[in-house]
């Protein structure tokens, strides 16, 4: 058998574009194209596994490359290509200027091609360790993953890492593509050994099945059709299908989702006039028909679907994957963030969870700090506890950690400020997958998968009491407030807060002053001064202040509270308008010159670590309700000014 007789499928290969059909009967072709299904898959491999070459070939074979692009490609191949005078398919795929120079793929790129049966979207994922987040991103929307192995090198650390990540994200269709078979003489033994090695590893991390195939992305063997170079591959022990044939026949996720119970996360309430009220969203799982009884979470109220409205007329049924607008028979509470579910089998609601989190930001996870958590159309404030463990993605070992750094994967508990309607990720990607957003930078810093809610939140219910916070406040004839003094050590927070409290007391207001130093003697005596401990310190003070406002009190707090995110966390705990941020604005030089407690001196000498202003940052309030400048005002003047600003307080 010579090389020329082997499979190197040309553009006219029948599984791809049926050029004859296009030319002879465009209507028939369009009808065929219209009814194609779609498969999204990712390719994972390290720099030299020939990933870009394989994708380049699939695009080339499906005529997704035009002549002008081909001309540019041929010219580029000669200039910077790594394949001598032959066409370097990789150049077609490596898009951005930076990576063309470096010869590596640095981000997820999406490519498209068609065969007779399906449309494909390929997420091309980089193999470098520092880009784990890109791979997780690509895998999150994939129905299938192609894991490439260089036949000469076998199962590498990267192979394990990629497989683990795909498994973690729940990609159940795995293809092990043993590439560059042409460079090992299409050896069955080499292939068998790699598959045996991989099988052992796959079992150890819980991968139940995968499909292994010997291919050459460069030569085209077993890519579109079975190659004569690997006759043994047709044997009973092997899959015996080409890569494309396999991609055309595997089940897509949306087909599986349609069989699950109905879930529709509400994106938007459509209310053009008083006669129409519809709820719009993408159906996550299941199907819905007019007449179906539904339950709206988190309220738990039930109603019946009356219509499924679209521009093209009402539908008799809608299934997972469709964007729809539904109407109810009753006016029940339902808004963005609500989940419409089948009435007799609704999802759970909870506020404490265990989750696997992939960290994606340069700044590590701040344990205890509030982040935005977006799950479906729900956006809540959430804090993550110290991880139970992180996973070493190369060895799969569990490692004890204090936090999660960029590209780390860990299991941790998290708490949200409001109940979240969810399902375990393994059962429902849409109601179990979430992202974490930094409240200050607005970056997407993490992605997570909810596993289960903690018993605590299932068993601890809010006890409704008859005497409300309004009753408490009205008896005291005042409006509860938290007067949150923030500023550097020695800025005069305690002194001014004390003066304000004295004045309020004279005015017959019921108050309580929570002082930083005093709280650390009792409630928070277990906490130190690390960043994590300081966040927890403020969180506890916030909770105590909130309870006191529930009791109708005006609470004054005097804490350095250096981090904006933590102050915002407390603000978010309280009803609108009750949190009054008072910035005691004293320049560092002035506070340091005062040095009432001698702390700056200690910090400068190194005897005191993590001291705000010296070796730990103070994030100034950008928009405080009240700001007092202690260089221009005495403590009494400042107190007087604050009282004037606060009035009438009723």
């Amino acid at each position, binding site marked *: 058998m010579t090389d020329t007789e082997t499979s190197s499928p040309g553009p006219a290969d029948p599984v791809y574009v049926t050029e004859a059909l296009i030319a002879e009967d465009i209507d028939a072709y369009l009808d065929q194209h219209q009814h194609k299904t779609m498969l999204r898959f990712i390719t994972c491999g390290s720099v030299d596994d020939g990933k870009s070459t394989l994708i380049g070939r699939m695009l080339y074979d499906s005529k997704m490359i035009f002549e002008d692009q081909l001309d540019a490609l041929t010219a580029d191949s000669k200039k910077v290509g790594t394949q001598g005078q032959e066409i370097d398919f990789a150049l077609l795929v490596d898009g951005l200027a930076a990576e*063309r120079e470096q010869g590596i793929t640095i981000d997820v790129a999406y490519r498209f091609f068609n065969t007779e049966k399906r449309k494909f979207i390929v997420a091309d994922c980089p193999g470098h360790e520092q880009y784990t987040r*890109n791979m997780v991103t690509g895998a999150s929307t994939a129905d299938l993953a192609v894991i490439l192995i260089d036949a000469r090198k076998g199962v590498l650390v990267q192979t394990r890492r990629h497989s683990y990540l795909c498994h973690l994200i729940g990609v159940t269709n795995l293809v092990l593509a043993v590439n560059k078979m042409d460079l090992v003489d299409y050896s069955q033994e080499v292939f068998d050994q790699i598959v045996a090695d991989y099988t052992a590893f796959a079992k150890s991390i819980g991968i139940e099945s995968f499909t292994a195939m010997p291919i050459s992305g460069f030569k085209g063997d077993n890519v579109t059709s079975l190659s004569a170079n690997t006759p043994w591959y047709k044997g009973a022990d092997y899959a015996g299908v080409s890569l494309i044939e396999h991609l055309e026949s595997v089940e897509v996720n949306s*087909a599986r989702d349609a069989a699950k119970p109905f879930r529709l996360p509400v*994106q938007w309430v459509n209310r053009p006039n008083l006669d129409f009220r519809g709820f*719009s969203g993408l159906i996550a799982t299941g199907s819905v028909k007019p007449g179906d009884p539904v339950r709206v979470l988190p309220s738990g109220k039930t109603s019946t679907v009356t219509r499924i409205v679209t521009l093209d007329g009402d539908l008799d049924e809608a299934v997972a994957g469709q964007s729809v607008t539904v109407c109810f028979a009753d006016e029940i509470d339902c808004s963005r963030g609500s989940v419409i579910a089948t009435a007799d089998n609704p999802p759970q609601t909870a506020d404490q969870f265990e989750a696997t989190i992939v960290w994606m930001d340069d700044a590590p996870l701040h344990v205890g700090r509030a982040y935005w958590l977006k799950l479906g*159309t729900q956006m809540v404030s959430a804090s993550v506890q110290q991880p139970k463990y992180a996973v070493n993605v190369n060895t799969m070992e569990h490692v004890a950690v204090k936090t999660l750094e960029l590209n780390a994967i860990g299991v941790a508990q998290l708490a949200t400020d409001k109940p979240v309607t969810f399902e375990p990720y393994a059962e429902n990607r849409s109601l179990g997958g979430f*992202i974490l957003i930094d409240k200050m930078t607005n970056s997407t810093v993490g992605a997570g998968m909810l596993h289960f809610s903690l018993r605590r939140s299932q068993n601890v219910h809010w006890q409704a009491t008859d005497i409300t916070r309004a009753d408490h406040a009205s008896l005291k004839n005042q409006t509860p407030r938290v007067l949150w003094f923030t500023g550097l050590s020695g800025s005069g927070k305690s002194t001014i807060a004390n003066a304000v409290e004295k004045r309020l007391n004279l005015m017959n207001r019921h108050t309580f002053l929570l002082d930083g130093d005093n709280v650390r003697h009792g409630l928070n005596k277990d906490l130190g001064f690390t960043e994590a401990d300081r966040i927890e310190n403020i969180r506890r003070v916030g909770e105590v202040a909130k309870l006191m406002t529930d009791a109708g009190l005006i609470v004054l707090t005097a804490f350095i509270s250096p981090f904006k995110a933590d102050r915002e966390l407390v603000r978010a705990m309280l009803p609108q308008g009750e949190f009054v941020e008072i910035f005691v604005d004293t320049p560092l030089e002035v506070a340091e010159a005062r040095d009432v407690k001698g702390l700056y001196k200690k910090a400068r000498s190194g005897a005191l670590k993590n001291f705000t202003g010296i070796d730990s940052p103070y994030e100034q309030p950008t928009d405080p309700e009240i700001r007092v400048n202690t260089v221009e005002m005495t403590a009494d003047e400042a107190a007087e000014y604050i009282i004037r600003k606060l009035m009438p307080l009723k």
Partner: protein
Amino acid sequence: MANTLTHLERLEAESIHIIREVVAEAEKPVMLYSVGKDSAVMLHLARKAFYPSPPPFPLLHVDTTWKFKAMYELRDRMAKESGMDLLVYQNPEAKEKGINPFDHGALHTDMWKTEGLKQALDKYGFDAAFGGARRDEEKSRAKERIFSFRTASHGWDPKNQRPELWNLYNARKAKGESIRVFPISNWTELDVWQYIQLNAIPIVPLYFAAKRPTVERDGMLLMVDDDRFPLKPGEVPVERSIRFRTLGCYPLTGAVESEAKTLPEVIQETLLTTTSERQGRAIDKDAGGAGMEVKKQQGYF
């Protein structure tokens, strides 16, 4: 209904979901409307997303004053039909200096389109702008996110994009920053054509072949759309049966000779052709292989 949606049904649902997310999370969204076929599909998807309400945002046309007459006609008609406000913005500086494609080359695109777009977004304070770009158009597009984050000066940093997982989009941003959103990122040219056919979406007639006055310059067939077209000595417009694969400023957009008068014929020709869609546009060829990437970093859509 079959339980497995077709690829077009999935693409449509994904695009509608994206458009609704933006409306739910952005303060002041706008849809960039270029009157081309991709804009036509995007507008149709927006109408589907909010039916029976009209889409709750305006259309913005960044005008260069050099578009085809037929484009202006369709633009005004579609704004009326959709019940949306149409904002037309023309860069006053470009207008004052008389910047035009015949005398100013690349500067024309830069001032009317790139600068014009930035000015318009700043003027109205839009914090989210829909665009009709697709990932299959061009290599640097293939890597762009669906929600593409821009700095206050409209810059795009390809190495610092937010990860996009599942269908969860992060639309949060600081004051002054904005996002460009591409709801039809995952559509191919064929998908766009087929969707137009299946939904009978109105498009500019220039996409279909007809006899039109043309001149040939530097290997490009240009249509003489109005009397601002400066003919060279001895140059006489010739009637040719032509159509356009993409539409932009008429002096910069090359036509192809064609007899395709119906949508199936156009699609057929598109599929059998061997040159890529953007080839008719001069813009991609500036600055070598990285032309579009550089343009995007400067704030081009």
